[in-house]
């Protein structure tokens, strides 16, 4: 029992390890834009792991500064969305096994 429990635990740990890396689901951006945005999202989420709002704020404001105005950002664990985005300006990724981040640009 304990051994099994132990195994289950280790499995879970492994899985959690597996699932922590940033996984991009949809990306419409240029390569350089994409890499920068991804790194930014990872940084923000690690920094504000407790507070989704702050993370989203940080992402949005940094994107505005770097790449021009009217970026939008949502960070969360469970939501549905229907958005209109400018072509070549969308990033939708998962991070940390539980968080989903969507960043898009739209005036």
């Amino acid at each position, binding site marked *: 029992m304990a051994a099994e429990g132990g195994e289950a635990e280790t499995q879970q740990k492994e899985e959690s390890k597996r699932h922590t890396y940033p996984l991009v*689901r949809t990306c419409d951006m240029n390569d350089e834009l994409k890499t920068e945005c991804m790194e930014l999202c990872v940084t923000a989420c690690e920094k504000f792991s407790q507070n989704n709002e702050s993370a989203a704020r940080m992402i949005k404001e940094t994107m505005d500064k770097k790449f021009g105005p009217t970026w939008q950002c949502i960070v*969360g664990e469970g*939501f*549905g969305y229907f958005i*209109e*985005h400018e072509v070549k300006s969308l990033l939708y990724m*998962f991070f940390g*096994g539980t968080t989903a981040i969507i960043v898009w640009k739209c005036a």
Partner: protein
Amino acid sequence: MPVKGAEKKTTQPVAGGVPTQRRLSQLPRQSIITGFRDDDQDFGNMPDLSDEALRPVRPDDQLKLTDAELNEEHTRILTARNPQAAENIVRFSYKDRTFKPIPQVDQLAVHFQLDGNLIHRDSEEGKRQLVRDIGEQALGEVETTPTKAAVTEGEPTTKEGEDEDEEKPKKPTGPAGKGKKLTNQFNFSERASQTYNNPCRDRETFVEQTPRSVFTDNVSQWSIFDAYNEDFDQQQKAKEKEHKKVAVKKDDERKKKFVVAEQTGDDMAKLARSKSASISLKILERMINQNTFDDIAQDFKYWEDAADEYREQEGSLLPLWIFQYDLTKKLACTNLAWNTRYTDLFAVSFGSYDFLKQSRGMFLIYSLKNPSFPENIFITDTGVMCLDFHPNHPNLLACGFYDGSVAVYNIADEYKRPKYQSTARNGKHTDPVWQVRWQKDDLDGNLNFYSISSDGRIVCWTLVKSDLMYIDVVQLKLEKPATEPDEGIPLATLGCGTCFDFNKQQDYLFIAGTEEGKIHKCSKSYNNQFLDTFDAHHMAVYAVRWNTFHPKIFISCSADWTVKIWDINFKDPLFVYDLGSAVGDVTWAPYSSTVFAACTADGKVYVFDLNVNKYEPLCEQIVVQKKRTKLTHIVFNQNFPIILVGDDRGNITSLKLSPNLRKKPKVKKGQEAPEGPEAENAKLDKILALIRDPDDTKNKSISAQQTSTVPATTS
């Protein structure tokens, strides 16, 4: 006394009604209003004043008047006349020498006069004053500066102060030296300025909306989990593939290269060689040709020389296409033949007539639909001297060569080799073959053809399965020379055959022409002997042709410049035409028994119609561009009114016959036009009858007769 004294003092003329000057206390009463009663009664108007204190007190010196006088009305008139002014001033007029009253007396009464001290600044006095003032100002300035420090001086200081005061209002108004400007309500200046405003320009632009698209999804914990698992699996698979890939990569690369190269090369070539493509290309080529030679094609079909209506005995030849081919430029056209089934197809053989210059030869198949390039090209080792299409098998072409061999080609074959060829062992001629002619299939059903050559033999070739078998039919033996050799066996020398023709009605009968100028009448059945011989020409006979319709008439042409028409039964020619140059070829027209055409070495084509003019050609026309081009052969087309003429430069010219040249005889109204060979024969007979003498017996003799009684017409 006091009363009288008062009267005296105030004595005034009563007359005149002029208001007297009265005392001030009374004046207001006796004022302007007329008819106003005065004195005592006036007192009555005043408020009744009982007080004695308020009663008016009469002064002592007041004028005392009686009541009557007081009631007297004095009229007062208000006028603008000066009462002081005199009324009757007179002046002495020297003109009239009398005193005359002045008409108008000045009535002006000056009540008050005050002289002012303002002077206009532009008047002399004003200017003088201004100058004086400015001078004072300058002095004042000079004084103020050095004396500003010394303020304690009395008079000068006050003066300076005054000057300063004067200056102050002066300074702001204008610069010293110019006229003073006084700022006051009567003399002021306005200042205004308008800056330049740049004109405004509107600019508008319309920006395209940035492209957008919609994105939608639902995210939850389990969907995130699933996504990660999926990704993990994919990564595992990718790792596995990589291991496999490395091993297989090398082989693939090699294979790929080969396949790619082949494909690109083959496609185009295959496409071009494929049958359907070649057919389409052919059609396309013909279409292009038709477009290029559109006007010629139209002429070929429709153009009829309208001038022919006006000239009865003349016709013309309209040049149509010229068929040329690069490789034949140095070769001469040696023979022309129309295809029996395809009326637009004809074959041309090329070789060289020059004994010394012998090179390769060729023959081409042309179509009228494509004048720029031959349909088929066959190149041979030696010059091709003649060719003939088989009447039933339009793909079989028999040809004779300069080296004496004959061959049969199947022009539909892809390979340009003859189907049959005669060899040295196989009975080929030893001299150039001048003519070949297909015959009807023999009893066994084999195809056969005849050839004639300079070696004096007329040979019949039979196509037996895959072989060519020959039979010597006739040998053209020369007549024995006058001087016979004393010794030895007289060898029969053979003449050189140049042309032959088979009778259309009697197949076994044929005529052959020789280089010596003789024409022999032969039969297929008799090998050694001629049926008859005509001393036709002085030089080589180039062509003999039977008449298309008439079984007994034939025509011959020769290098001795003449064309002669013969009747097989008569020794002498019926018609002789001298054309002025060596005649290369002569041929009858297929549509009429009386029309024939000849071509000469000076590039002219002659067309005769015996029905119209027995002695002169209807048309005599040069058909070649370059001079010194000899025409070598001429043929009529069976279906169209065109002729082909070949020359020694390798060109074939096609010409259209004008209507006059292809006339049918005029018909009486009501009668049907007689057609067919019988009519043609009858036509010719009629002509011949006119020619011939009633004395026929002499002409019918077989033995040669020098003298001719027949009026052989010459031209």
